[in-house]
């Protein structure tokens, strides 16, 4: 599983810039500079020297998230069937005689199309958890379209959907009241129960759509999506819980105390590392180093301060592991800044090297950590930085001034530093839980 980042980095495709190169051959003697931004075209990095990326092919995130429990094929099939049933309620094609308002009609057909795209994503998902997430999104988007259509076709009302939502929330509370932190290996238990906690938390905090300015039909559609989202969260939480319970020996006890005290230990470490940080600088000029430090500081400060503030002890453990890794990364970055090693790039080669290093660091973190599942959860999260940096890079279609690559550089440096800190952070979590 550890080589998925490498596969992405090596992938070659015909990209937009590739097409540009073919089209421009002979016609343009080198790309033009970005208009008016620089007088010195010698400083530009040629677009043809940058990594040639196709935005659509960049995985989001680079390292697929997963959960250490089997998701049953029948659960995924049921979700797929639910999407098919919802989409099956729609008139095809949906025309002006069905929904005369073209804008409203487009919102519904776009939503149905999102659902179909998400079904495709589920089919090509790299992990079962990714498939489950994509199917949840497919259900939500399909329900949006179906609920909107049901308002026009059958008078479906917000009131009725609000009632359905209330029932789901009440069922979720009943499920949550019964939920216990069963487990044998506390790390594995933390990873599974964290997903359950987060699902319940998401559901419990959602009391209705946030939209305004939409007409009556689209408000019903939004409510439909909200109701489906709540049902998805409950269905998935129940499934993960029952699958996990089934995987445990019959006499498995609860690990709640271990999770709570482990989370407290880790959060105390986060607080202690935070208190040792130098005062936040207020530089006059923001470069790669300053932005890196500010971003890392923000991501360490974000999140629950105590177990009570978290969705539960399991997600507190997972969250704290990520923040310990980021704290360690910040310490390392600070040392490198002091040694004058952090700056923007001056050439495409430097950028390529940073990108390769980031991908290598993600792979190394997955392989080196003592708990592969825990490492994957943290690495997957930070690998979004690489996805975002790659997305930014893919947007360049002309020569670029080096400092315009600072955001990209920062993403690769941040991901590298955090990934390198994942193995020791995982060790710390394993120690704290045992």
């Amino acid at each position, binding site marked *: 599983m550890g080589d998925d980042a490498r596969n992405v980095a090596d992938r070659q495709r015909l990209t937009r810039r590739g097409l540009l190169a073919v089209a421009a051959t002979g016609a343009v003697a080198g790309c033009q500079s970005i208009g008016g931004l620089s007088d010195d075209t010698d400083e530009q990095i040629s677009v043809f020297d940058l990594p040639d990326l196709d935005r659509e092919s960049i995985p989001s995130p680079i390292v697929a998230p997963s959960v250490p429990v089997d998701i049953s094929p029948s659960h995924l099939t049921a979700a797929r069937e639910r999407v098919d049933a919802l989409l099956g309620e729609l008139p095809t094609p949906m025309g002006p005689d069905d929904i005369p*308002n073209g804008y409203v009609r487009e919102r519904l057909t776009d939503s149905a199309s999102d659902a179909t795209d998400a079904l495709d994503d589920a089919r090509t998902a790299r992990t079962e958890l990714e498939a489950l997430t994509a199917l949840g999104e497919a259900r939500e988007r399909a329900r949006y379209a179906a609920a909107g259509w049901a308002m026009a076709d059958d008078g479906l009302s917000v009131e009725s959907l609000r009632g359905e939502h209330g029932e789901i929330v009440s069922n979720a509370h009943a499920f949550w009241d019964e939920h216990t932190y069963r487990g044998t290996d506390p790390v594995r238990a933390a990873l599974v129960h964290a997903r359950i906690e987060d699902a319940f938390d998401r559901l419990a905090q959602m009391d209705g759509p946030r939209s305004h300015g939409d007409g009556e039909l689209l408000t019903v559609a939004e409510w439909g999506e909200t109701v489906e989202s709540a049902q998805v969260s409950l269905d998935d939480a129940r499934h993960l819980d029952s699958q996990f319970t089934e995987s445990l020996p019959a006499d498995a006890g609860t690990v709640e105390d271990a999770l709570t005290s482990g989370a407290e230990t880790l959060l105390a470490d986060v607080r202690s590392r935070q208190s040792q940080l130098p005062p936040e600088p207020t530089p006059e000029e923001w470069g790669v180093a300053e932005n890196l430090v500010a971003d890392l500081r923000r991501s360490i400060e974000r999140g629950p301060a105590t177990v009570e503030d978290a969705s539960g002890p399991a997600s507190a453990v997972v969250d704290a592991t990520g923040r310990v890794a980021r704290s360690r990364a910040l310490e390392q970055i600070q040392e490198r800044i002091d040694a004058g090693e952090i700056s923007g790039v001056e050439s495409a080669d430097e950028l390529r090297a940073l990108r390769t290093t980031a991908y290598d660091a993600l792979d190394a973190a997955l392989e080196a950590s003592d708990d592969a599942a825990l490492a994957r959860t943290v690495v997957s999260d930070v690998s979004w930085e690489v996805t975002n940096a790659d997305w930014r890079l893919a947007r360049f279609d002309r020569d670029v001034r080096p400092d315009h690559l600072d955001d990209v550089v920062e993403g690769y440096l941040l991901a590298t530093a955090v990934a390198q800190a994942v193995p020791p952070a995982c060790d710390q979590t394993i120690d704290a839980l045992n």
Partner: protein
Amino acid sequence: MNRRESLAAFAGVAAALAGCSGYGSATSESTPTRGAESGIDTDAPGAGSATDPEMIHVRGATERAPLWLADPDGETERERRSHRERRRHSRTVVDTPARAERLRVADGVDADGLDSFLSETDLDSQTLYLESVEVRACFELTLCRIEWQPDEVSTDYARTQLPYDTRCGVDDHVFEARLVRIPASLSADEVRGYGSSIGTAGCARRNRAEAGSGDSASAASTGGDQ
């Protein structure tokens, strides 16, 4: 011919031009306001605001503004098309009967009530403000607030979606023109600044937010130095 007579004469022309499509009506909207967003201090001399001004509202699926002020040199229809059809948002101050006579209504647009509206306007103490905005055909605008001072006029609109059973094309556009009666005497030569904002929250919410953002709430339709 005095001012009022010339306005009445134009009103007859407008009635004759009134056609079939679109809809027009004298409308009124909304609640208290405060001029913070536009930068207009509605408490200053000569300044004011209104959330329910008297106006003529014309909406038409026309290629250009359905209600407009023709150039003084008697521009032809062909010239008007080429010059104006890309003007998606236009505004002008009508402060004299001579300018009011240059008001034109596009063929086929129903500007019902325009004639009486014009004949009831006293340009000695009132001013007409003509604003035309292009909007996606599946949406409509509601004028939440108009604010003025001697050198500036500003408007705020709420954009709402038309009902789902109203037929409209997602890529189509229409024009909404409003001829608003400002209860103050402004000079077209002095008004140099125009502002306009359009949001998706309804007028009640927008005006509440506006009132909340100001230092003090000012009553609607305060006219300034009339």
